[in-house]
């Protein structure tokens, strides 16, 4: 064979000059895009702004030093460290963050493309408003004044509840906390964020089972799992870096990986067992597995005796789920479930992971509780390698949930009762009466607001049916993609009916284009998290500190600065920022952290001072990559990111709690027990039984049994009150004397003393498997509202219609109609690895957009052939509420027969119409497509109002 191997460099330049231009074409994306015509339509609108901020070649000419700055990826909740190389204020490159114990240098497609946020060619560049159907650039001052005046006008005529403050899981902790505080000062509980439509059913279900609503262990702890079972979770696409940790267990422990999902996902492709059930049958499936466990006596009896209450009631329900009944409902053969049950029983501790596939249902809270019960029966909770590892979605959805950017609680899950408001009034150093004065009434102050999933009904529903004075008239989308929500066609109507629509976001989002408004729309450019700094809570409850990578690009401002500007406009900035330093309208982040440290006692966000968090980022490399504990070094013994609860004040140096409810360690070293949250006894209807733990307690506990949550009276009874300092005692006596409990003692004295004696401040109780205050105390299977299994409705019908969260909520009246003949295919939805959420940011990133250019629907090949559809043809997907989307058909075996799947990240097309021309010039994402949720239908969880976006019916026809 001819060989021409050359040692060093090929022959000198020959044709170089002639082809110089072409050569440049290969390297400059801007030039290339202009030539290629690949992104036609987007091109004519290319921004006139210089991309110099990020031109590496330009920066490389200079000799100035390259700085490495640590931030955290702003996509999912794994919390990957992004190492930014910055030169002369220009973000020139990304290096792997090998020191981070979470990602060990790894990224997925999104994290590896993070730097594009700084190019920002498709960002929203300056405040913009819609005038006669045209976008007009305005100044920040005009924007704040005009919007502020309009909102105040709505407040005056319809009351504060007619403005809806929709926050974000993309805010950092400080911004999320300020946002929650902001709408409290505005005077309404009509605020919420994505957690409502992501894991609200998890938080409700899990917190009501054992105390806290969060992931119990960590991604890293999965290294020690002997078995992994996933329900409705597809980490290969949604949390790719988490797969690194799952693979570790699979390879090192030979741990079976069981994936329960209606689709053969990319995760299922790596599994040892794929359980393909009919969408929406999770409870039936779990009970079908548990049936074998109970039948064979594989449950952990001693664990249950000590730590679990109410399992006898569950047994009665599970007994109904024989292999035959389970197969009839779920479609999964009994033999497979017996194998799964045996695998779970033989490989302990095992972890159970779930995501949106489990939560986004009308029965979401039943699903999450069933998962918990399966793990409790196996004795897997509170153990390393075990746990309910609930992977949260967005980078800071855990934090934003903890700060309760929600319509039903105050930061730290304190609720909305008078005492809760009084607690936060003390922390904020304002009068309760002052806060009350901002609300329409004390009753509305203490009643749950409208959840984000239902804001459209807050606008469209007859005023007479809503439990507040008037409809929602002003809507502020502060970091939220509307296409992540179901019922797109009605949403369009709602957007058009509003008096005012405000978008605060780095991108215009679909909110800018999906309606046909001619005015009353404002777009305000917010920064990404790379242009500001602060703390962010990963799924495992660890807090990480982001440093600022670059200054805000274009005219964008950090969210907290925008909040301050509005507070100033509304005249409550002095009260709201009383103890927070403000420089040039920007509140000092560290002061905000310190303020929430003063109030978040319930879940232990009190020990994570800015100084400690910064030290953790600095010494990342000293933490063990499995236990997350620092070995030696300045942070010896602490757990990475001080996972909450990090009890007491920062002074007591609690190391954080790596795994919740794990009694194998002392509380002072991160151990715990189940929380005493549901009283001392079950109600008489449920046996009137003792709920305290029986003979199980964390190591070194001086109380060798269960005990209630700590109060001053309890300290006195135990004689431990003598350990309080004078200062602590004075505060406690002054607050509520003996009745002062561990949650409201602002000195942290009660917590400190309890921990000193080896006790958990929140008590030591059993987990409860029956949640007597929920619509279904024992989780039961109920068919989806839109079901084609009419034969199952006798036994498994849904709820009766009811009033919830200020609004009428429909169940039975929808299920009563049979749509199964006209709409024969079950429709579900999910994620793609390249995009995130509504996708406005990731579809504006050319490195990602290039990889997924078309919205599609996955159809089983056999179904497609029956209908007469070929691969890559355009089809209409129509759902029973008559909304329809035009998408490309993808024929695949990935979905079972009778099931179709839509990815939900697309937007910018609406029922067949391309809306590209409606975006502000130069801000249209590279890739547009139909939003899956335009077609997704009605349906809300019976406890949390989570939307049903995983099961509906559809018909698919050639377009």
């Amino acid at each position: 064979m001819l060989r021409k191997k050359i040692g060093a460099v090929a022959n000198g330049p020959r044709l170089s000059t002639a082809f110089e231009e072409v050569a440049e074409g290969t390297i400059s994306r801007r030039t290339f895009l202009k030539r290629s015509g690949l992104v036609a339509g987007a091109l004519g609108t290319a921004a006139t702004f210089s991309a110099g901020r990020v031109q590496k070649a330009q920066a490389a000419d200079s000799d100035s030093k390259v700085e490495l700055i640590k931030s955290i990826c702003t996509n999912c909740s794994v919390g990957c460290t992004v190492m930014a190389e910055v030169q002369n204020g220009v973000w020139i490159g990304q290096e792997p963050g090998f020191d981070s114990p979470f990602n060990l240098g790894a990224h997925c497609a999104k994290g590896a493309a993070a730097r594009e946020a700084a190019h920002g060619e498709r960002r929203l560049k300056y405040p913009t408003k819609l005038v006669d159907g045209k976008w007009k650039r305005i100044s920040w001052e005009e924007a704040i004044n005009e919007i502020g005046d309009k909102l105040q006008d709505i407040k005056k005529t319809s009351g504060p509840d007619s403005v809806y403050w929709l926050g974000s899981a993309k805010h950092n902790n400080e911004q999320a906390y300020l946002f929650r505080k902001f709408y409290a000062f505005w005077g309404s509980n009509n605020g919420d964020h994505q957690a409502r439509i992501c894991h609200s059913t998890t938080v409700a279900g899990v917190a009501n089972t054992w105390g806290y609503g969060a992931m119990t262990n960590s991604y890293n702890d999965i290294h020690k799992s002997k078995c992994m079972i996933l329900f409705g979770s597809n980490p290969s696409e949604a949390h790719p870096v988490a797969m690194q940790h799952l693979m570790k267990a699979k390879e090192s422990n030979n741990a079976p990986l069981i994936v329960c999902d209606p689709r053969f996902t990319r995760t299922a492709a790596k599994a040892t067992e794929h359980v393909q059930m009919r969408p929406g049958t999770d409870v039936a499936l779990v009970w079908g597995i548990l049936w074998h466990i109970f039948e064979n006596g594989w449950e952990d009896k001693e664990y249950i005796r000590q730590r679990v209450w109410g399992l006898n009631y569950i047994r009665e329900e599970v007994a109904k789920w024989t292999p035959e009944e389970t197969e009839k409902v779920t479609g999964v053969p009994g033999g497979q479930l017996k194998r799964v049950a045996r695998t779970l029983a033989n490989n302990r501790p095992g972890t159970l992971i779930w995501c949106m596939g489990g939560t986004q249902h009308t029965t979401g809270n039943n699903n999450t509780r069933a998962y918990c019960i399966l793990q409790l029966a196996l004795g897997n909770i509170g153990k390393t390698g075990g746990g309910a590892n609930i992977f949260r979605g967005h980078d800071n959805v855990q934090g934003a949930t903890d700060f309760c950017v929600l319509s039903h609680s105050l930061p730290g899950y304190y609720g909305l009762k008078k005492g809760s408001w009084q607690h936060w009034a003390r922390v904020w150093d304002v009068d309760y009466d002052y806060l009350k004065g901002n609300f329409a009434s004390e009753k509305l102050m203490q009643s749950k607001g409208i959840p984000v999933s239902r804001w459209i009904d807050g606008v469209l529903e007859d005023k007479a049916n809503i439990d507040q004075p008037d409809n929602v008239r002003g809507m502020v989308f502060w970091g939220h993609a509307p296409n992540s929500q179901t019922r797109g066609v009605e949403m369009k109507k709602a957007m058009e009916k509003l008096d005012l629509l405000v978008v605060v976001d780095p991108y215009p989002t679909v909110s800018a284009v999906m309606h046909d408004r001619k005015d009353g729309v404002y777009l305000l450019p917010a920064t990404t998290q790379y242009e500001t700094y602060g703390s962010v809570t990963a799924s495992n409850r660890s807090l990480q500190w982001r440093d600022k990578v670059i200054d805000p690009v274009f005219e964008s401002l950090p969210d907290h600065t925008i909040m301050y500007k509005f507070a100033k406009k509304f005249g409550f900035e002095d009260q709201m920022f009383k103890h927070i330093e403000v420089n040039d309208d920007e509140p000092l982040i560290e002061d905000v952290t310190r303020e929430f440290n003063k109030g978040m006692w319930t879940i232990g966000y009190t020990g994570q001072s800015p100084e400690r968090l910064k030290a953790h980022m600095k010494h990342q490399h000293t933490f063990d990559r499995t236990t997350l504990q620092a070995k030696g070094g300045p942070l010896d013994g602490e757990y990475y990111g001080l996972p909450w609860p990090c009890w007491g004040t920062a002074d007591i140096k609690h190391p954080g709690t790596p795994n919740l409810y794990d009694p194998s360690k002392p509380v002072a070293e991160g151990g715990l027990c189940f929380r005493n949250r549901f009283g001392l006894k079950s109600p008489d209807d449920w046996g009137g039984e003792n709920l305290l733990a029986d003979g199980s307690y964390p190591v070194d506990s001086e109380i060798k049994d269960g005990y209630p949550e700590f109060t001053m009276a309890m300290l006195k009874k135990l004689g431990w009150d003598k350990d309080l300092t004078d200062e602590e005692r004075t505060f406690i006596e002054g607050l509520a004397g003996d009745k002062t409990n561990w949650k409201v003692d602002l000195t942290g004295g009660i917590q400190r003393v309890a921990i000193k004696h080896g006790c958990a401040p929140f008590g030591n109780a059993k987990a409860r498997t029956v949640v007597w205050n929920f619509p279904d105390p024992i989780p039961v299977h109920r068919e989806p509202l839109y079901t084609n299994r009419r034969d199952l409705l006798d036994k498994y019908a849904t709820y009766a219609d009811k009033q919830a969260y200020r609004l009428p909520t429909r169940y039975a009246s929808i299920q009563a109609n049979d749509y199964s003949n006209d709409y024969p295919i079950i429709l579900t939805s999910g994620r793609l690895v390249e995009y995130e959420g509504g996708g406005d940011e990731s579809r504006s990133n050319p490195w990602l957009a290039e990889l997924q250019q078309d919205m599609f629907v996955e159809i089983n090949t056999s179904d497609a052939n029956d209908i007469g559809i070929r691969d890559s043809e355009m089809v209409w997907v129509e759902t029973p509420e008559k909304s329809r989307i035009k998408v490309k058909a993808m024929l695949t075996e990935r979905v079972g027969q009778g099931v179709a799947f839509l990815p939900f990240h697309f937007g910018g097309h609406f029922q067949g119409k391309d809306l590209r021309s409606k975006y502000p010039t130069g801000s249209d994402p590279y890739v547009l497509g139909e939003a899956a949720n335009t077609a997704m239908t009605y349906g809300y969880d019976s406890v949390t109002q989570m939307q049903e976006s995983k099961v509906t019916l559809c018909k698919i026809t050639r377009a």
Partner: protein
Amino acid sequence: MARMKFLCDAERCIECNSCVTACKNEHEVPWGINRRRVVTLNDGEPGERSISVACMHCSDAPCMAVCPVDCFYQTSDGIVLHNKDLCIGCGYCFFACPFGAPQYPQSGNFGSRGKMDKCTFCAGGPEEDNSAAEFKKYGRNRIAEGKLPICAEMCSTKALLAGDGDIVSNIYRERIVGRGFGSGAWGWGRAYPAGTSG
């Protein structure tokens, strides 16, 4: 002397495409040019496997053998590079390459070819190391900075390995031993059709 190699562990690759975007980010590769791609076989069916593919930096590189203007050269580490000033964009290397590595800008309606572009193992080109000129034509030179290719360094599951062949194979060997017999080897399923792994 090191001999640079890539290895993609198909048991671990989840088609997350981080290798693809990391490469785009590092070298500012334009839309339409993909120095690295993830290929998925049996997509959506049992036995689905993904593997990340780029220039494999062959010892006896067919591209080098066929290039009419002799624009290729191989470094002492075994990295196959080329000189864009010499390249005439004929596409002959694309014929020869067993991996589909060479890429051409698609300018104009008929995709008239420009200079060939391909994976450099993050080692730049003939220009001075880390110069602006080198960056402009070939992207960043991580090897000269003492670093390894960014695609492998950022791989979400550590499926893609890059570096000195001896070290890469040691890492992979350890992994195979940890996994137990058979399961990890690429092609296992083909050798033993009844099995589902590999």
